[in-house]
């Protein structure tokens, strides 16, 4: 710093860059992270001329490739994503001279920001020509970033809103459907609705499309029986990705539960708020801060409107982000901003306040931020909410399904007891 200022030692390896021309020559592979949202996003990107595909390979080979190519102690999501890429590239289905892979990058203080170099390193030996594209909003990886105009950003944002609504409605109908497959049909129809919205370039008329989706799901005939509701919170990848969480939602369905999965938009807003908080707490202002403020204001405004509409149709709405922030303040400081940070306890508290006491807190084995924001806050939450019933589940390449399911079953046993007690109380109240 002082002694040798000006002299720099460069230890970087060469890696293939992603250039704008590749839009026309390359296929882009995307990991299977958010089944509901990615379907929508990929759809509109294709229409914008991108040759893009979400991977669905899900065999043991995916995990094995990940184990071979990523450091033993790196977190499970890095391993799943890398494994999925390599397994796909090896399948022979893709022209590896003209294929790129893409992943999101946050740039936070958690090691997840390092997935890009890790994937590059993993691909280097066998697929030296495959570029790794970074999808980020922090100006990282300038030579391999995904080009994004304001319009694409807006489409992305609304895709997230639509994906969230779709996911939430599907979860609220699937366990209760009287006619098997009715919810899946509704899901297909809603995807068609969203497609139309984007095709017509009317995707910003969110009220109209949200209503259309609500109406479609309202047609699904549902039983009135009470089921155990289970919230899923945690690290972003294992929370949403079936590959990452051993098909947790399917397992919960098979156990007769209703999964309650908080919105992806909350994570987007969480990232925006962290930037604003940094400015407030530490005077870390930069050029983007006012933009983040603006974006936050607008997105939150849309979110609130969607909540109002959802309520009108008798469905449980997703959380209001301002409410989440208030929930966070009861448990942890909003300064905890690495990984999913304060969002995890905020969601756990908000779930408890909206009648979902049972929670799976999903995290990759040894996830650093989760030590504090996940496992570390459970005690506080239990003191705050009498019936809060949380199980923290570690996901890991070798943690077996038996082990994970056994723990979840323990949580469910308590959940069922609580539900029975509640019903008894209700019945007693009725008698009186």
């Amino acid at each position, binding site marked *: *710093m002082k*002694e*040798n*200022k000006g*002299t*720099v*030692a*460069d*230890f*970087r390896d060469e890696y293939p860059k992603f250039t704008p021309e590749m839009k026309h020559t390359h296929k882009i592979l995307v990991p299977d992270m958010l089944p509901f949202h990615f379907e929508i996003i990929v759809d509109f990107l294709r229409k914008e001329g991108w040759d893009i595909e979400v991977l669905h390979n899900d065999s*043991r080979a995916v995990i094995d490739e990940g*184990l071979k*190519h990523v*450091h*033993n102690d*790196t977190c499970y999501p890095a391993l799943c994503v890398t494994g999925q890429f390599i397994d796909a590239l090896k399948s022979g289905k893709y022209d590896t001279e003209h294929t790129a892979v893409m992943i999101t990058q946050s*740039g936070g*203080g958690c*090691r997840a*920001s*390092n997935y*890009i*170099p*890790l994937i590059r*390193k993993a691909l280097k*030996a066998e697929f030296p020509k495959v570029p790794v594209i970074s999808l980020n909003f922090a100006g990282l990886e300038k030579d391999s970033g995904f080009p994004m105009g304001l319009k694409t950003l807006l489409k992305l944002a609304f895709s997230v809103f639509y994906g969230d609504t779709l996911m939430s409605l599907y979860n609220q109908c699937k366990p209760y459907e009287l006619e098997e497959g009715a919810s899946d049909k509704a899901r297909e129809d809603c995807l068609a609705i969203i497609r139309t919205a984007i095709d017509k370039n009317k995707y910003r008329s969110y009220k109209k499309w949200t209503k259309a989706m609500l109406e479609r799901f309202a047609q699904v005939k549902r039983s009135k029986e009470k089921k155990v509701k289970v919230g899923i919170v945690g690290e972003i990848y294992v929370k949403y990705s079936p590959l990452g969480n051993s098909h947790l939602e399917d397992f919960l369905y098979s156990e007769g539960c209703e999964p309650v999965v908080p919105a992806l938009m909350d994570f987007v807003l969480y990232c925006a708020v962290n930037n604003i908080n940094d400015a407030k*707490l*530490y*005077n*870390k202002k930069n050029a983007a801060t006012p933009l983040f403020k603006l974006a936050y204001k607008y997105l939150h405004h849309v979110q609130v409107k969607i909540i109002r509409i959802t309520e009108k149709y008798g469905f449980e709405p997703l959380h209001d982000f301002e409410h989440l922030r208030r929930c966070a303040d009861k448990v942890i400081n909003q*300064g*905890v*901003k*690495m*990984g999913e940070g304060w969002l995890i306890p905020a969601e756990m508290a908000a779930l408890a306040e909206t009648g979902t006491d049972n929670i799976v807190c999903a995290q990759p*084995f*040894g*996830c*650093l*931020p989760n*030590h*504090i*924001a996940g496992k*570390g*806050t*459970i*005690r*506080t939450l239990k003191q705050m909410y009498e019936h809060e019933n949380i199980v923290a589940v570690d996901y*890991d*390449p*070798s*943690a*077996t399904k*038996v*082990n994970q399911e*056994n*723990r979840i079953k*323990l949580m469910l*046993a*308590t959940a069922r007891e609580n539900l029975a007690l509640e019903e008894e109380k209700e019945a007693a109240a009725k008698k009186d």
Partner: protein
Amino acid sequence: MAKFMGIDVGSTTVKVCVLSEEYEILYTSYERHFARVKECVLNQLSIVEEKFGGGEFRVSITGSAGLGLAERAHISFVQEVQAAFTAIRKYYPDADAAVELGGEDAKIIFITGGTEQRMNGSCAGGTGAFIDQMATLLNITVDEMDKLSLRAEKVYPIASRCGVFAKSDIQPLLNQGAKKEDISASIFQAVVDQTVSGLAQGRRIKGKVLFLGGPLYFIKGLRKAFKETLGLDDEHAVFPDNAPCFMAIGAALYSKNADAMPLSKIIESIASVRESDDIATGDPLFKDRAEYDEFVARHKASDLEFADIKTYKGDAYLGIDSGSTTTKLVLITPDCKLLYQHYQSNNGQPLDIVLERLREIYSLAGGRIRICGAAVTGYGEDMLKAALKADFGIVETVAHFKAALHFNPKVDFIIDIGGQDIKCFKIKNGAIDNIMLNEACSSGCGSFIQTFAKAMGMEIDEFSKLGLFAKHPVELGSRCTVFMNSSVKQAQKEGASVEDISAGLSSSIVKNAIYKVIRAKTPDELGNNILVQGGTFLNDAVLRCFELETGKKVVRPGIAGLMGAFGAALYAKENVVGASTLISEEELKGFTYTSKSHTCKGCTSHCNVNVIGFSDGRKFISGNKCEKGAGLKPHSDELDIYSYKYERILKSTTGAKGKRGRVGLPLALGFYEQLPLWAGFFESCGFEVVLSEQSSRKLYFKGQHTVASDTVCYPAKLTHGHIESLLDQGVDFIFFPCESYNLDEHDSMNHYNCPVVAYYPELLKANNERLNEKNFIMPYLDLNDEKTTARALKHALARYKLSSKEIAKGLKEGFARLDAYHADIRKKGAEILEKAEKEGKAIVVLAGRPYHIDPEINHGIGKLLTSLDVAVLSEDSVFEKGKQVLVNVLNQWTYHARLYRAAEYVTEHQNINLVQLVSFGCGIDAITTDEVRAILESRGKLYTQIKIDEINNLGVVKIRLRSMLAAIEEQKRRSDERK
């Protein structure tokens, strides 16, 4: 009316219970199932049928291995903790808590004060299977271990988080001659500690406590340890007579919701359960017998020739390898024919074995043979060398390389899988170029199969042979043994055969070695002339898996298990000068020894020192981290910057009494860097600064009940003890800031702290009931911005009404002290460097994090290095002399950026090497280690990594460091030759 039945299918046993219509217990049974779950259950049911003559039953199944069975047989299933809870409420309504240990699970149920049920996470030893494994290691039954433990005089600290770690702690104790009585008790104590820290997590186990499950029923020593640790009297510690079957009873109670069925129908539906096909399986190891025969014939070619010790006349050389679990002896002729070989499990007493064998050799030799040289290698090297007066003690890596060269002079890759280590060496230009040893986590290789074979009621040979012709070897994953155990459990649940499991285990071991230890991406990376060795490779199934996985034909010497000893003998042959000093036949006759242990009070390390007294009056002392324990003059710390830094940081305070009050600063995590800053700030503002006591294992235990996440790193876990220490000292408040951002040292893209260092105060506050808003102050700060820092401090310390001026002055004083601290480290670093260079000593940059200077965290590695005659620098004493670096990864953490620059600095200095110190569970180091390695290797430097945890024994570390020094020496010798 129907009777009630509960079936508990655990990981190792099946328990059945029958209740009358009035819930009276009519019958219980307990049997090990040896992975044959279905057969065992059916057998138990036929006994029930005989006894009760059929009739109607309401039945429920419980237990970790029972889930699949229940699903497929369409029988009601109840989660086992729930089952236990059901039974507790029925029979012990006044219990406050229950602890249940099973084969592979540990559970706690809190009943009063907020019902809560907890199970161990996926990374946890400390269970029945762990105890079994430890018993195997000691070569005694669990029952014997129990009896021994009751006669213990002292308890050694043993890592309890994971069986593999515990093994690494126990083995050296055994090798050093610690008493089995004490070790047995220590193992049980480790299980208790694991339960208390891993499960209770911030909640105290108190009141009337029920102890359930097989191990707690059968093992008195374990009961005793629990009672003592939890401070329970007989009235409050309840050990029910039906503890082993308690879950089965619970399941029976639970079946009141199930439909009644005739017993015959229950048996029928269980019998009809078929193996499911949703477990991953691989191809058979051999197509047919012919392929196997060809394989056997090919490997026979690499056997040594024999000479008959009973007739041979002439010179001979002795090699002894005192390994982690086995002791090996080899006697060879000058033309390398094998006169005598021995391979035996240590049984915890390597010295006894060696003495006995040496007597045998002398007697077989009948005076015809002259032993001209003897060398010892392995864990027990020092002790055996002293006892036998052997000519040489050599590092085991060197011994193995010597032996490998004998079989293939072109060898470029050696892999050795032993009892609990995997060692790999890459050979370049005829010298060891790179050494890879398994980290304590992925170890547990050979002895794992052994333990598992025992659990199946078989010998290891028999068990592994079963795998050779398995039709569908199961995929068990590749990681540490605890995980493998649950993979096996899963396979069992799915109905895999013993043959398939055996083959799967062999394959796991191989994959573990290739992908986790060597971390090869393609088999070609290994080399062209691969030599495999170590006892585990004598197992044909493992050898075959290795060849299949690498796609290469490899050499396995017939003495694969004796290579260390053979190499030692070769070394002795090549290097002996004059007559051998080895103990003579005559001396051996009357040779005896005694073993005693005590705690050394020489310094704060408080080593457990073992003293072995030999009958000829000599003594051997081990367990000591420095010469002080050995009764020698303590060596000087002057070339060890770790000692210096630790002492220096303790001097951050002036000790002035303050008028405003007493603030507590914990000696933990970020304070190992920022203590001067905060001490300066608070003293300037008129507070007395109180430091927590220095770290120790005892301190860790003091805080372990508030540890919320059992997989967090040891430096973080220790913090809990420091908080307790400060609270006990009655400070007015504890100050512990949260800092997302560290100080910007302008050499990285960003300057974060790791998430644990940044936010640990949040976790402390949430999980320690003694902390509150008033006595725990944790502002969010970014020290790079003075304005917001001052504002946040003013706000956080509002009740002391500090003026802005006072705060500004305080910060100024703090930063001045911090700068002085940094300057002192740089100065000391320069001094050490100069002195070491003048004296021609080897220099190592021990690169870690600021908190690695805590002797309880680094376990005295600095001292160990200086005792090996190496000068020790730290990353922060040199990084500023290195260039700015550009790396592949996102360089965004302050402490980690120092590592890269320190590595760059080392590459520019021929006489300096780097050893990276990594805390187990440090997620960020998964990224930095690869990058530091790449920096060093890109410029032809060796990379050495040492992983540290609670693990308190430096045996493995020492081998690693000595191997590194041997390799450096070799590199230097050859570069000198070239000149």
